[in-house]
């Protein structure tokens, strides 16, 4: 069945008006025919998986034709904002979902800044985009009115120039009434590590969403509308004050996120001997990249729409003259790790500059850093040579060459074409088969963060079972690294709903921590809350299910018990696993890179630590059982039927 028939059948089942106060419409946009249709997510779907990431899964599950390929124009690209996005402090997030051209499994990426909120200001909660535009297109959404515009003037532009040009041409103002999701040259060239930029730095990153958007001939989505009040079931602003106060009173926000941002994490990972270095061949690196060394280059902090935290560090290298990459936005911890130790780079200025280039070129720094680290190790081992690289010597710590390679990747020039195929370089015939052994990836997705998880077994399990591939932002039981919590067993038990071993390198009960985090984070994504400020990720004191429950009642009128809300998070994971199963994912894909099984951690206080295959398999089985999954990792039959009914496919 063609995508248009699938869409028509789905819309026939969908309501024509809002199902609760504040609900926005779902816009279906056929880019080939330049046609749009509008409907509303059914209430039963909202009750099962909420909105944002959750409802995105409903749309993908219903519209996916797994006999095609990810870049087929009949595979939709779906955007969704959360139920509280734009209305609640620190809830500025939305997700972008499809079938990943990079990993071959679920593509689902979360971003903040202003686009997800301003999409809602235009009356839309979800966008479902399909069909290949005849020519490069810009989808304009102006005060709720959708038009297809020629994007020819913007083709070939990267993020910085594109943002300048759009601000000049469209009559809107960033951060006040205008936002954009756009691709760069990398997306136009179907680079598999390209993301969709949602701001100067914000990016829908993982799995190659930039390539997917490029395959549809869509250069950008621009929204323009004044911010507005939403009709809500009850007044919600008084409780917003409670949430804001709770955010700002939390130590991690007050003493870390608001002052330096996420680079703080570099030091504990380094001291633990868990800092992925040189493609995880080593696990310790220089103290010269500790967060305090970024202080002199950080002129201020920025934030997302209506977020009081302001955790995004700006940067300025204080270079007179020079090019546009000496100032910018970031880096976050992931970029610091992936473009610092992962590539053997020890200079703060180099990391900042590479970060700024990636923001302009529209690169997912996790996937891009992974592809580069992999290539450097292959070169070190002689598995590739200058014959593969076009004469370029690949050396650890050579920031100048890395910079050059980034630009080559964006245009798929020379060896850049190989790097642009990311984790699929062996499958595409660029690297010998043996290269797979050194690829740090799960389910075809390079590791999101630089933390080497041979020590912390809960981190390792999370990376193995994450539905989009090797990514810590889906389920990381981050508090495993907080000694105060490990040393308070009663409190730790209360956090995870049962005992979890205090020892970071134990396998005992770690599945319980991962299960709880995965559920709460999926709820957070589906209401639009930032991960950094969701309970359990950075602190046990941040807003969690209780706060979401209260504001969902105030904003939407939908009443959820805490158990029901947590169940929504579980359901999101369940649908994601059903999608992945259709894409061929099985238990054997819930695994880890060979290196972590076969090579003991080479340094630090946990030197010698590795992942024991038998212990890992037993932990995975316990995770499946706790999660009501079969031993192949899909929802058990009764739950599967329940989900199918909620999705309208029984």
């Amino acid at each position: 069945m063609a995508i248009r028939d699938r869409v028509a059948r789905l819309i026939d089942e969908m309501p024509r008006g809002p199902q609760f106060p504040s609900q926005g419409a779902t816009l279906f946009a056929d880019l080939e025919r330049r046609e749009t249709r509008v409907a509303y997510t059914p209430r039963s779907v909202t009750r099962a998986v909420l909105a944002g990431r959750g409802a995105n899964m409903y749309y993908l599950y219903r519209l996916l034709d797994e006999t095609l390929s990810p870049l087929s124009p009949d595979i939709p690209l779906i955007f969704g904002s959360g139920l509280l996005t734009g209305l609640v402090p620190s809830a500025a997030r939305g997700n972008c979902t499809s079938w990943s051209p990079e990993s071959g499994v679920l593509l689902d990426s979360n971003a903040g800044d202003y686009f997800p909120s301003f999409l809602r200001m235009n009356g839309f909660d979800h966008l479902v985009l399909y069909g290949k535009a005849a020519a490069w297109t810009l989808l304009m959404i102006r005060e709720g009115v959708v038009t297809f515009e020629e994007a020819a003037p913007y083709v070939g532009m990267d993020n910085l120039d594109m943002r300048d040009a759009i601000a000049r041409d469209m009559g809107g103002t960033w951060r006040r009434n205008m936002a954009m999701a756009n691709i760069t040259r990398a997306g136009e060239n179907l680079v598999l590590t390209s993301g969709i930029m949602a701001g100067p730095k914000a990016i829908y990153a993982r799995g190659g969403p930039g390539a997917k958007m490029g395959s549809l001939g869509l250069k950008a989505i621009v929204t323009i509308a004044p911010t507005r009040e939403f009709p809500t079931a009850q007044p919600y602003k008084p409780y917003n004050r409670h949430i804001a106060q709770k955010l700002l009173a939390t130590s991690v926000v007050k003493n870390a996120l608001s002052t330096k941002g996420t680079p703080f994490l570099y030091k504990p990972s380094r001291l633990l001997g868990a800092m992925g270095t040189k493609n995880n061949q080593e696990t310790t690196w220089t103290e010269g990249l500790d967060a305090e060394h970024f202080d002199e280059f950080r002129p201020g902090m920025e934030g997302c729409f209506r977020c009081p935290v302001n955790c995004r560090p700006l940067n300025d290298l204080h270079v007179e003259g020079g090019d546009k990459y000496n100032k910018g936005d970031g880096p976050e911890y992931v970029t610091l790790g992936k473009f610092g130790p992962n590539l053997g780079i020890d200079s703060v200025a180099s990391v900042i500059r590479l970060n700024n280039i990636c923001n302009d070129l529209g690169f997912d720094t996790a996937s891009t850093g992974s592809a580069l680290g992999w290539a450097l190790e292959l070169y070190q081992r002689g598995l590739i040579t200058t014959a593969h690289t076009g004469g370029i010597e690949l050396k650890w710590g050579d920031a100048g060459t890395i910079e050059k390679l980034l630009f080559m990747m964006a245009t798929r020039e020379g060896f850049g074409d190989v790097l642009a195929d990311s984790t699929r370089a062996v499958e595409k015939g660029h690297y010998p088969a043996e290269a797979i052994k050194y690829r740090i990836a799960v389910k075809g997705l390079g590791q999101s963060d630089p933390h080497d998880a041979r020590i912390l077994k809960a981190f390792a399990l999370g990376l193995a079972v994450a539905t989009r591939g090797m990514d810590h932002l889906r389920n990381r039981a981050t508090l495993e690294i907080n000694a105060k919590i490990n040393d308070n067993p009663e409190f730790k038990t209360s956090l995870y709903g049962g005992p979890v071993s205090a020892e970071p390198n134990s396998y005992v009960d770690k599945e319980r921590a991962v299960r709880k985090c995965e559920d709460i984070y999926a709820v957070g994504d589906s209401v639009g809350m930032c991960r950094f400020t969701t309970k359990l990720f950075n602190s046990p004191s941040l807003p969690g299910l209780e706060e979401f429950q209260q504001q969902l009642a105030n904003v939407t009128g939908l009443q959820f018990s805490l158990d029901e809300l947590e169940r929504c998070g579980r359901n999101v994971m369940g649908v994601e696993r059903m999608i992945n199963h259709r894409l061929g994912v099985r238990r054997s894909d819930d695994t880890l890179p060979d290196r972590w099984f076969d090579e003991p951690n080479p340094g630090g206080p946990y030197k010698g630590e590795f992942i024991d295959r038998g212990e890992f398999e037993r932990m995975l089985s316990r995770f499946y059982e706790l999660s009501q999954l079969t031993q192949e990792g899909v929802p058990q039959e009764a739950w599967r039927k329940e989900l199918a009914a909620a999705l309208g496919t029984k």
Partner: protein
Amino acid sequence: MSVTVNFPASLQPLTGHTLVVTEAVVNVAQLVNALDRLAPGLADRLDDPLYNIAVNDELLLHNVDKHPLSDGDVIEVVPTIAGG
């Protein structure tokens, strides 16, 4: 006995960059009590999951209070957060 403790910027208004504990302490719990005598209120501030402790560049993740200390140890209070 001399144990040197370095603090992050968020605690420095109370502690300065470094405090040196010269009284005898055999483990981290005793060290925290000694620090609180030097900088009253510090024990409460350290009772916060944000802060981990590293002893001679080894980050402690559990069983911290009983971790033994020796003369000449260098302690660092390390803010520990998650990131993306």
